[in-house]
């Protein structure tokens, strides 16, 4: 129920940072060991034999400050003048990294909750005739206190003035003798400390888990957006309000006499959907159809070259895939199928984010909707192509709905909105047991195309049948060609025009809103296609296939491959977990997420055009054949 937020940078990793600090704090409190979040260093360093509550809290404070400083210095300082997309990608990298490293370093997470001593007393007091836990009251008091302190500090002190000056105008602040670097670093430390303590304090109420705690960032960002990103008081009030509404909704839905909520809606889903509705509502209400004069960005975007030699590349890649399907063994075929599906998903990211500049973190949610919808109608006897078509159509509709805020907001705010939408879809639709089959998942019936069995499974070495591989290949090829054709035509010009400059695009007669929605439609259709293929490719489709983390990875891999073009989607697909590259390198997949987090940050800082961009650069430099692509 408690979240608040300070810095002017929209940081998706904020919840994850707090989550790590909290884990480290409890571990330190239990064992006196410091757990390092860095790969390659020893896991743990013993510091003290038996820390007290006070020393543990001080430890957490120092650790959180150090983490905030490190994240700012290593990741966001080099990206200060980068376009929003690069910063979103980098913060997703940090998010992935922290979440997965925590999972690896604290293997007992969730089980050891019992041993954790809560920081706050747990008794209950009577207030206005109802029982309220003490810790909640203290928490609310703390929120108010922290808010007041922050508000006063930022209003009255030189430091606060400097922060506001730097947030308003970097260069002006430098001229006035303020170091924006130092100011930003201090703010990052404060934000990190607040996040860490928030998570530590709410642990007895909300629990602690690498995934759900990291997702606390969604209601936090909702509150911050409500507060207009610059008022502490408004943000804290908004945060408390969201928390209370969530609790109220929960109270309603668990009551047995509540009948107006359909049974298939999961109660936790309704609870999680509240911040989403808030975010979308506020964004739509406050946004402008076109950016104002001052906010037209000049930051450079990753180049998006016109696709060339499409026919040749299609033929070569398709032939290689067919050869692979008929000569490789079962695991090789599996890897290729995974890659082909990932290529389709990456294409959806390329269209929306690479071509039109709209950051969406809901792509996998669209895929999930399509996958489960396809299974649902296939169970009712719909043939395979129709079921897939239905799934794709539904994903398109959902995608356009989620894309509606994009007609009024842009950049970071849109990323927040789509992330929120993804969480809502995950919780409401996919997480609903009657639709998704609960934990057990659902299975698609065997697919037939024109009477031919194109199912994926078979006994023994025949499993991952080439027939299904061909279907997946066909889908990937058609998707790639459609995207390439549109990109090479007037539609592509309009996409790039909207990406480059919405005001100028509108002045040239382009309906910016409709162009964006069209891109959302195509993109979510592609994501839906990927979802349907996944549904038929896995023996049981469970909700875990479509968690938000997967969407983050999809965006990450596409960005790695090169978000500006189709080649980037292909490379992203090759890099996908359990895809061709990982199966060839046969490395352990447990490091995959962590490494993709690191790679994401590195690419965002050093090579915004991804591996495909590096390949192109080398191509241009040498005037030779494409050799750089193999680098991945």
């Amino acid at each position, binding site marked *: 129920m408690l979240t608040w937020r300070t810095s002017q940078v929209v940081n998706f990793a904020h919840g994850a940072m707090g989550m790590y600090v909290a884990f480290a704090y409890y571990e330190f409190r239990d064992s006196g060991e410091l757990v390092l979040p860095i790969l390659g260093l020893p896991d743990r360093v013993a510091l003290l034999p038996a820390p007290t509550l006070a020393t543990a809290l001080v430890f957490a404070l120092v650790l959180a400050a150090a983490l905030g400083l490190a994240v700012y210095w290593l990741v966001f300082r080099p990206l200060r003048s980068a376009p929003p997309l690069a910063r979103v990608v980098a913060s997703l990298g940090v998010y992935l990294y922290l979440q997965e490293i925590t999972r690896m370093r604290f293997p007992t997470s969730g089980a050891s909750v019992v041993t954790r001593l809560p920081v706050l007393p747990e008794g209950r007091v009577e207030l206005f005739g109802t029982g309220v836990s003490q810790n909640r009251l203290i928490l609310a008091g703390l929120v108010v206190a922290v808010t007041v302190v922050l508000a006063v500090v930022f209003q009255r002190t030189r430091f606060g003035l400097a922060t506001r000056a730097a947030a*308003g*105008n970097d*260069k*002006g602040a430098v001229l006035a003798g303020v170091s924006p670097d130092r100011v930003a670093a201090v703010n990052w430390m404060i934000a990190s400390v607040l996040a860490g303590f928030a998570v530590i304090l709410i642990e007895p109420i909300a629990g602690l888990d690498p995934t759900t705690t990291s997702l606390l960032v969604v209601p936090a960002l909702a509150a911050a957006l409500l507060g207009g990103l610059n008022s502490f008081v408004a943000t804290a009030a908004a945060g408390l309000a969201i928390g209370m509404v969530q609790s109220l909704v929960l109270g309603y839905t668990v009551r047995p006499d509540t009948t107006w909520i359909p049974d298939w809606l999961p109660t936790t889903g309704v609870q999680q959907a509240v911040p989403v509705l808030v975010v979308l509502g506020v964004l739509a209400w406050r946004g402008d*159809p*076109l950016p104002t*004069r*001052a*906010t*037209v960005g000049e930051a450079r*975007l990753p*180049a*998006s070259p016109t696709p060339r030699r*499409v026919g040749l590349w299609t033929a070569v890649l398709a032939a290689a895939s067919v050869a692979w399907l008929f000569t490789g063994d079962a695991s090789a075929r599996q890897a290729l199928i995974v890659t082909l599906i990932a290529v389709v998903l990456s294409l959806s990211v390329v269209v929306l984010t690479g071509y039109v500049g709209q950051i969406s973190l809901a792509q996998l949610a669209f895929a999930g909707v399509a996958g489960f919808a396809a299974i649902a109608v296939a169970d009712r006897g719909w043939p395979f192509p129709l079921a897939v078509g239905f799934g794709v159509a539904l994903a398109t509709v959902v995608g356009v709905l989620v894309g509606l805020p994009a007609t009024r907001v842009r950049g970071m705010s849109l990323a927040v909105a789509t992330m929120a939408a993804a969480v809502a879809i995950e919780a409401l639709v996919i997480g609903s047991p009657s639709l998704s089959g609960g934990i057990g998942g659902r299975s698609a019936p065997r697919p037939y195309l024109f009477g031919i069995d194109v199912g994926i499974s078979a006994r023994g070495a025949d499993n991952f049948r080439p027939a299904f591989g061909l279907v997946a290949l066909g889908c990937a090829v058609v998707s790639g060609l*459609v995207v*390439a*054709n*549109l990109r*090479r*035509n*007037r*539609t592509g*010009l*309009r996409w*790039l*025009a909207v*990406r*480059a*400059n919405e*005001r*100028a*695009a*509108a*002045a*040239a*007669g*382009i*309906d*910016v809103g409709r162009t964006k929605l*069209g891109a959302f439609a195509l993109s979510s259709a592609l994501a839906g296609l990927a979802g349907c293929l996944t549904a038929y490719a896995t023996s049981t489709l469970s909700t875990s296939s479509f968690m938000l983390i997967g969407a983050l990875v999809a965006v990450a891999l596409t960005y790695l491959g090169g978000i500006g073009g189709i080649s980037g989607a292909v490379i992203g697909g090759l890099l996908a977990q359990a895809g061709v590259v990982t199966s060839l390198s046969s490395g352990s997949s447990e490091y995959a997420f962590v490494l993709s987090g690191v790679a994401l940050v590195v690419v965002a800082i050093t090579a915004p055009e991804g591996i495909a961009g590096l390949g192109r650069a080398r191509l241009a430099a040498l005037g030779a054949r494409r050799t750089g692509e193999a680098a991945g």
Partner: protein
Amino acid sequence: MSGTVTDDATPVLEVRGLTVRYGGVVAVDGVDLTVGDGEIVGLIGPNGAGKTSWIDAVTGFHRPAGGSVRFAGSDVTDASPHARARAGFVRTFQRLDLFEDLTVRQNLLVGASTPTWRDTLLDALWPRHHDEEGVDEALALLGLDDVAERNPAELSNGQRHLVALGRALAARPRLVLLDEPAAGLDEAESAALGLLLHDVRERGTAILLVDHDMALVLGVCDRVAVLDLGRCIATGRPADVRANPEVVAAYLGTEGHRTGETERDDREGGA
């Protein structure tokens, strides 16, 4: 092509009582202006006079607090910017705002036509080549043929101005509103631009020219309106406006003493 507005013909653009407010500040206060078919009308005024606010309101980028805008006989006060552009009322930007990712020809193609859903579907299935006469015509008129396949970043400042003008002309609009097209051009380039504007008018496009370059505005325009402190203080032939004492006091006489320019630019460019 007479120099005055004739009452019997419907004007291409008819702005009545346009008022723009930012919070409590009135940036434009009830300004009227008409542009007739094939006319070149100038709008001048010292910095801070409300020219840019007026343009944004007339072209739909900012909602006016009051007044009406009629284009080619129909009310477009509440129409979106792209709807105005498609109807044949196109604008350029002071900062050019070219699409830097696209070639010069592509920059012009973007504005040239509006594909229907059917076109888009066909495009998705098969790559087709589209010829746009308006684009070739504009490239030829502006002498951009040789650089059509280059990116705007490789061009000189003067050529970039021409690309911005070409993007506006590619759809063969009835009226083009030019926001300081001569900003940053040298005298020779500015004079060449003046000649070009006459060619544009000859092809049936009326021009509303907003600029600081007095030589250009007074030399090219049939009529000139002068804005000061959000009000229209004079309209008429260039010679009459030049002689108007109120105009001289507000603008011409004090040119060079006003320092509003730099402040304004900072506000627009920063934050």
